[in-house]
């Protein structure tokens, strides 16, 4: 069933907004969500396959940990540590690929690491859940800070306004297109939307069962509503997304780097008088309804 996307207005405290419209939703839908997220995307798999043996990395917003076992043909050559805000997703991620993984309960806006300790970092389908430009920039800065200033590599994926024809998500005729202005107004500022997740009653029970097995200190009042509606046929959870506009992701990454005093560009092209530390954008593009960007840090 195609799920319709509706406009969202971020209001009040962005952190509280995300607790209600992102974190508590993932706590509820974790098992069902995870059962639909198992296939690694090609560019991400290629990135992980290109890493040399002995590297350690961070998967910031690991979800169900589907990237933690990669590369599959060289198991244990690299170790990716998974971080997520959803305790219930981490309970799944900890045994992704039927082996024990390293996972940490934390926030993508925090940096609970030795600075520059990782050789690489990935952030897949995560930064688009942050509800202000400033918070999205800060999340990228945490990524840039946690990788080696000499050789660190990073790959970021976010959801795009420009959607694939094959995408399951569509704007149904019942939803006026103007509601999110996907076609009419391609603004570099992107679009704030709700993306519904439909949980059937049966799945809802499973989800509640999973939730009871762990304790979250930050459960939202919303959860009480779920308890009361279990007999309902299904429940719709609206997740907040910031859909990125064309060009927005490289602009955001560049602003994040400059905010840390890093140059942006090829170190060989940066003239004398430029900085001695920076990032280089290795590739950026659009794949299957997402924008991605790969970068590396350099120092000279």
């Amino acid at each position: 069933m195609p799920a319709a996307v509706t406009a969202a207005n971020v209001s009040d405290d962005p952190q509280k907004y995300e607790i209600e419209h992102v974190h508590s939703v993932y706590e509820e839908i974790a098992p069902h969500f995870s059962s639909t997220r198992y296939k690694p995307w090609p560019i991400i798999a290629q990135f992980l396959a290109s890493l040399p043996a002995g590297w350690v990395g961070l998967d910031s917003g690991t979800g169900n940990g589907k990237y933690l076992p990669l590369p599959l043909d060289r198991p244990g050559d690299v170790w990716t540590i998974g971080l997520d805000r959803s305790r219930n997703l981490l309970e799944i991620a900890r045994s992704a690929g039927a082996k024990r993984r390293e996972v940490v309960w934390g926030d993508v806006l925090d940096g609970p690491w030795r600075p520059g300790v990782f050789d690489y970092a990935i952030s897949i389908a995560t930064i688009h859940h942050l509800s202000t430009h400033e918070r999205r920039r800060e999340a990228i800065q945490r990524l840039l800070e946690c990788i080696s200033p000499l050789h660190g590599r990073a790959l970021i994926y976010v959801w795009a306004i420009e959607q694939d024809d094959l995408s399951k998500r569509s704007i149904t005729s019942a939803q006026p297109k103007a509601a999110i202005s996907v076609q009419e107004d391609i603004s570099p500022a992107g679009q704030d939307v709700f993306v519904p997740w439909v949980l059937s009653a049966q799945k809802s029970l499973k989800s509640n069962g999973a939730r009871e097995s762990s304790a979250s200190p930050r459960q939202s009042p919303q959860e009480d509503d779920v308890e009361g509606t279990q007999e309902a046929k299904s429940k719709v959870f609206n997740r907040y997304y910031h859909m990125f506009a064309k060009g927005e992701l490289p602009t955001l990454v560049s602003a994040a780097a400059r905010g840390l005093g890093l140059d942006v560009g090829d170190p060989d092209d940066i003239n004398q008088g430029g900085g001695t530390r920076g990032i280089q954008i290795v590739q950026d593009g659009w794949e299957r309804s997402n924008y991605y960007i790969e970068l590396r840090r350099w120092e000279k």
Partner: protein
Amino acid sequence: MVRLITHNLLACHAKGCTSNNFPLQLKDVQVELRDAEYNADFLRGFISRIEWPALVDAARQLGDTSLPNEPPEMMDDDFLQKLHHVLLEIHIEEGAMICPNCAHVYPISNGIPNMLLAEHEIG
């Protein structure tokens, strides 16, 4: 999970706590040993990234005294097997990690460390 590979990467990130914030001290920990796949290539590549004294101390606190005070120049298979065991086969299931600088407590429950901060602790 908190194996010692992860413990060697984590640092306190509470507001204003930017020095002497590593390594986090282990407290009241329960440990389980589980076999992990041995990968010498990983260990040889990773060893330069390890904060060695922190790893040796943490291992000794958990009752493993197999590692030398300094990493050896010759990384033979015997040494790499010991390193493998310390880094990847000792799982801290319950307990806490405490910042040596600000004494912030990061609980470990069901093998997952809680590195979230309360709102007033965020830098």
